[in-house]
């Protein structure tokens, strides 16, 4: 082997070593959660990197709890509602911001972006008052409202960027064919915007699915809780015991749908996220 080939080999080995490090760093916590969830509680604090036997006791325990099943249902309803509302408003807003020329368009865009810069805590108390006034406390509607507020800026921005890239002549052709703006949006633009909508929709779904602070603050009773709060409130036999097994089982259960969704949409996500960079 000559030095040149040696160099090439070393480089390749180095690259894969680096990939391995990154992979372990990123995946290990999740892997350890899966392992822990499959252990009986007696073995919980023995550090094992490999699973010797599978015990589904933790899963049985959480799924027999009615409040947890109810929380999953709540989370699904709330997240899907947020996605639907955010996409509907996002598409229509992006048409206005991307296609209609009006005074103050840039100002509106910057305001929308500005809203998303506030940390959640900053608006928590104000939002609490809003929700109380609207009579949405301890109600899925309150969470849908607050999540949509935080999801919309991103949705509107991405969709507007995407909308701007659709050729102007396409819209003009629709106008010549006698299409109203609503027909143009639904029958010409919508079919072309699926990649962007899949991306933004998925990110909105993940955000709503994992949100904790609002979910904790705006709900009171077990039957209105969402999954992240339900997990945090899983309690053990005594106040000194944290039931790691069921917590891990619950976490894995709620993460799996997200992983599956990302797998399904991954191509679209990439094409959607790079849409702004090159060409639609």
């Amino acid at each position, binding site marked *: 082997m000559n030095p040149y080939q040696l160099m090439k080999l070393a480089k390749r080995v180095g690259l894969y070593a680096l990939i391995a490090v990154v992979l372990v760093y990123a995946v290990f916590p999740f892997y350890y959660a899966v392992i822990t969830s499959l252990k009986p509680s007696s073995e919980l604090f023995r550090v094992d990197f490999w699973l010797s036997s599978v015990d589904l006791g933790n899963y049985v325990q959480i799924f027999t709890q009615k409040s947890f099943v109810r929380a999953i249902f709540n989370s699904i309803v709330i997240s899907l509602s947020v996605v639907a509302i955010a996409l509907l408003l996002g598409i229509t807003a992006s048409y206005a911001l991307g296609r209609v020329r009006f005074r103050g368009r840039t100002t509106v865009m910057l305001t929308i972006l500005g809203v998303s810069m506030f940390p959640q805590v900053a608006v928590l108390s104000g939002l609490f008052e809003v929700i109380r006034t609207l009579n949405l406390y301890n109600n899925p509607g309150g969470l849908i409202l607050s999540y949509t507020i935080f999801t919309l800026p991103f949705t509107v921005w991405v969709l507007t960027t995407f909308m701007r890239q659709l*050729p102007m*002549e*396409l819209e*003009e*052709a*629709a*106008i*010549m*064919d*006698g*299409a109203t703006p609503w*027909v143009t949006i639904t*029958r*010409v633009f919508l*079919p*072309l915007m699926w990649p962007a909508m899949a991306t933004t929709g998925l990110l909105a779904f993940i955000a709503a699915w994992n949100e904790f602070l609002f979910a904790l603050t705006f709900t009171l009773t077990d039957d209105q809780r969402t999954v992240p709060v339900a997990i945090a409130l899983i309690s053990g036999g005594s106040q000194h015991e944290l039931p790691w097994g069921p917590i891990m089982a619950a976490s894995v259960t709620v993460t799996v749908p997200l992983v599956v969704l990302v797998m399904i949409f991954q191509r679209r996500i990439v094409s959607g996220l790079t849409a702004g960079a090159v060409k639609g």
Partner: protein
Amino acid sequence: MASVTLEKLNKVFGHTHIIKDVDLEIGNGEFVVFVGPSGCGKSTLLRLIAGLESITDGELKIAGDVVNDLPPRERGVGMVFQSYALYPHMTVYENMAFGLKLAKTAKETVEQRVMATARILQLEELLERKPKALSGGQRQRVAMGRAMAREPRILLFDEPLSNLDASLRVQMRNEIARLHHRLGSTMVYVTHDQVEAMTLADKIVVLRDGRVEQVGSPQTLYQQPATRFVAGFIGSPTMNFMPAELLSSDSEGCRITAQGLGELALPQNAGGESTGADLTLGVRPEHLRLAEAQGDNAFEIVNVEYLGNEVYVYLEPKAGDTLLIHRSEAPSRWEIGQRVALVPELEHVHLFDAADRALGLAGQRQAA
């Protein structure tokens, strides 16, 4: 089918005055071509007719009715876009049927019209395909089909051939011309290519800086350009221009002197000009003859282009000047480096005054 009338039409974008007082009459069934350099407002003028831009001032009439404030779908116009702008997610059939469906046409009628249009444009085989599976020429035909399916009164074309390669462009140009003969519908066509304009138009409208420079048949524009701009724009290779000076004029014509050509007696009426006025002599490349050099009036041949059926000879009056072009049938006996004399065919030359307006022939009224 309908006529179109433009009366003192104006369009202002912000502080830019794009279209200035355009008056134009487009007859029923006429093929009118708007031509001019980029930025002359030809596309804007077409979009004003289509209804894609609002009219700032003036009146636009279609079939005698003022349509200034009507949306495009109520004007009865169809438009073919430069980029075709086909709906990528629809099949050819759906593309052509979209406008009809939006107009709530009965389903059988939609099918009938789309099939009839497809037959005319030879698209029957392609109806189930999506635009991405079509070639450039096929897309072009679908774009035309979409505009025609609704049977508009006026068909508008916005540089429809500029995205095609040269041979396909010639072929499509031919198809559009035959389509017009067959349908007899009113068509308005925008192009920057004077060859397209010459070959397609019943009437050419030359635009410059938002104003109509000259309107006329291709023949009129070629033979009697009203201004130096039109003379230079129409015809390829372009007309040769040479500075000249008026020596005398009478009812028969005038005498001028042009650099390198000596004294010439021309049939133009220069009665409005004073002796010694600066004029421009315009001679088309095919109206020049070359002869053996004699004395001072010699030009150097700097390049010879052989095109098979004809030959372009490029001449340099003196170092640094704009080259003159001579066109003749092949073969040519002239070679690079030779010195030759130029003899214009006097009955075919054009004379322009200091304001670049063409001077009319003596015995006729001066052209506007």
